[in-house]
């Protein structure tokens, strides 16, 4: 298993025969996943749909998200406007599609930052052990006990008023940095188990340096866990983004689901219920998709849970 994973990481330097073997093994794993985890596959489909909507929003959306049409204000669903229009006649369906772009950007961006940070912190802390580990862990605990959303709200409230600052980027950075702590503890606990394995001892006795051991022997074996925590974290980040946008601390000028709920939804939902229903459905669907896909991924990748 360990050897197999290191091989994957060394891919570029290997011959094409092992490439092909890797591709076949990956495809087989995919088929097994679909067969054993129907609910997880359903989640994966939702996730893929959201990601595609975010990437190809310009091509999919029938209207520009900010295009107003005062003659078609607060309309119900029709052939022209599938999910109706809002108070200034903007097409709800198109705005939802573009809303996926913000959710996915913030979701994947923040999770990328937090995973890289958490992996580094968890690997270093778990591998070094001793005093360094103790100090890092105390800091991580303090970091974790901070009121995340409250601090985010304060940061974004300030950042939003600045010119030349991209609010989406600020959101990605702030959410990413704040969620490093929790994830790093999960990764560290796995590193503690892996670093006492015999193949690590073997590598050390053959003269491998610390960096080589961490990157080639420990990281590949913690990697499945990192993937699982990333997927599960995505749902939480999307929910956090929606809450912040809902409270009015999200990006202005671009449609996001939370903001659609707070502005259009709350004001006009009595006249056009769809304005309050659809953005909420999108948020719930995205979070649901990532949650059940993450659960299934954990069942598949986490060896401790495999027997259950």
């Amino acid at each position, binding site marked *: 298993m360990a050897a197999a994973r290191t091989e994957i990481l060394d891919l570029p330097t290997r011959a094409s025969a092992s490439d092909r073997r890797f591709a076949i093994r990956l495809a087989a794993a995919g088929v097994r996943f679909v067969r054993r985890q129907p609910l997880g596959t359903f989640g994966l489909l939702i996730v893929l749909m959201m990601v595609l909507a975010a990437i190809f929003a310009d091509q999919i959306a029938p209207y520009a998200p900010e295009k107003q049409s005062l003659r078609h204000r607060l309309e119900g669903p029709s052939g022209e406007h599938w999910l109706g229009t809002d108070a200034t006649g903007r097409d709800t369906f198109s705005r939802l599609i573009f809303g996926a772009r913000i959710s996915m950007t913030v979701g994947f961006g923040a999770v990328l930052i937090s995973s890289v940070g958490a992996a580094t912190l968890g690997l270093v802390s778990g591998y070094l052990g001793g005093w360094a580990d103790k100090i890092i862990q*105390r*800091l991580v*605990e*303090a*970091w974790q*006990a*901070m*009121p*995340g*959303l*409250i*601090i985010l*709200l*304060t*940061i974004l*409230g*300030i950042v939003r*008023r*600045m010119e030349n600052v991209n609010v989406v980027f600020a959101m990605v950075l702030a959410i990413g940095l704040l969620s490093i702590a929790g994830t790093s503890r999960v990764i560290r606990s796995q590193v503690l188990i892996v670093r006492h394995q015999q193949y690590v001892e073997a590598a050390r006795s053959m003269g491998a340096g610390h960096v080589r051991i961490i990157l080639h022997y420990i990281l590949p074996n913690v990697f499945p866990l990192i993937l699982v925590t990333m997927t599960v974290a995505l*749902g939480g980040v999307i*929910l956090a983004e*929606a*809450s912040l946008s*809902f*409270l*009015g*601390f999200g990006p202005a000028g671009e449609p996001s689901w939370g903001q659609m*709920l707070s502005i259009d*939804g*709350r004001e006009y*939902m*009595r006249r056009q*219920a769809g304005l*309050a*229903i659809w*953005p*909420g459905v999108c*948020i*719930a*669907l995205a*979070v*649901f998709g990532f*949650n*059940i896909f993450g*659960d299934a991924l954990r069942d598949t990748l986490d060896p401790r849970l495999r027997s*259950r």
Partner: protein
Amino acid sequence: MGRYVTQRLLLAGLTLVLVSIIVFTLLRVIVPLVYGDAVDIIAAEYGGTDPELVQDLKDDYGLSDALVPQYLRWVGSILRGDLGESLFNGRPVSKEIQDRLPVSVELGLVGLISSVIFSVPLGIAAAVAQNRWPDYFLRTSAILVDSIPGFWLAIMIITFGSVWFNWAPPLRFEYLHDDPMTHLKIMALPALLIGLTPSGSLIRLVRTQMLEVMRQDYIRTAHAKGLSGRAVVISHAVRNAILPVVTVIGLSLPGLIAGTAIFESIFSLPGMGQYLVSSVGNLDYPVIMATVFIFSVLIVLSNLAVDISYTIIDPRIRL
């Protein structure tokens, strides 16, 4: 036991120091760099550009000192219980917080308690009925509850409640000591919705913990010596399954507290979260610094309570 509690207390102190540095850096270093001092902002808003007056005001507020003395002075005044005054209406922050803190704490506590009351029995029920339909039903519902944003649910209830049942939450807020019935009517829905947020993961966690414990040898022993199924579950399994649940309750506290900010805005309740949200809009920095700090104190205190309750539930920790 003593050593463990001391260690936890030190950690709580460290968290608060960390938070105070972040808050201070954000509001007294970054904001002034970008917008100028609070005094500059206010002076600009009133059209006052007299540089001498602005300098006098800065000296009054202690904003012209170096950063480290400013930080130490701020920490010192917090320790003395002086949280400053709002820049916008001049009201002392501590007075405002005195009125608002009970509202938020009540929301959070009622939410947490209702969440535990619902989730723990449901989780146990799911575990006992493992892989039969009640289990499937509860697990699916738990995942759904995890995914549905509470603020969306709140909006739906308010809208469709008024459309279909002609029901709406009372408009004017009443304190518990003034009008208990109206107060309960106002608080019940937001508190329950706050409690819903951690319920999904709580149900799932109680279920996995119960399943883990039910496979242990002492459970088989209990069955073997002829105890009824119910007695085994209640007196042998639940007590051992509950410890990680306490952890998750602890971990869900920041979320609960953040939830109060969201639901206070939706239901316009005069709590801490609403205070913070409106002050962030005005850049009212004494209020922002004080409220964020109080939120952190709340979380640190509840984490401390969770840590200490471990020693009561699980004697092994008392080493």
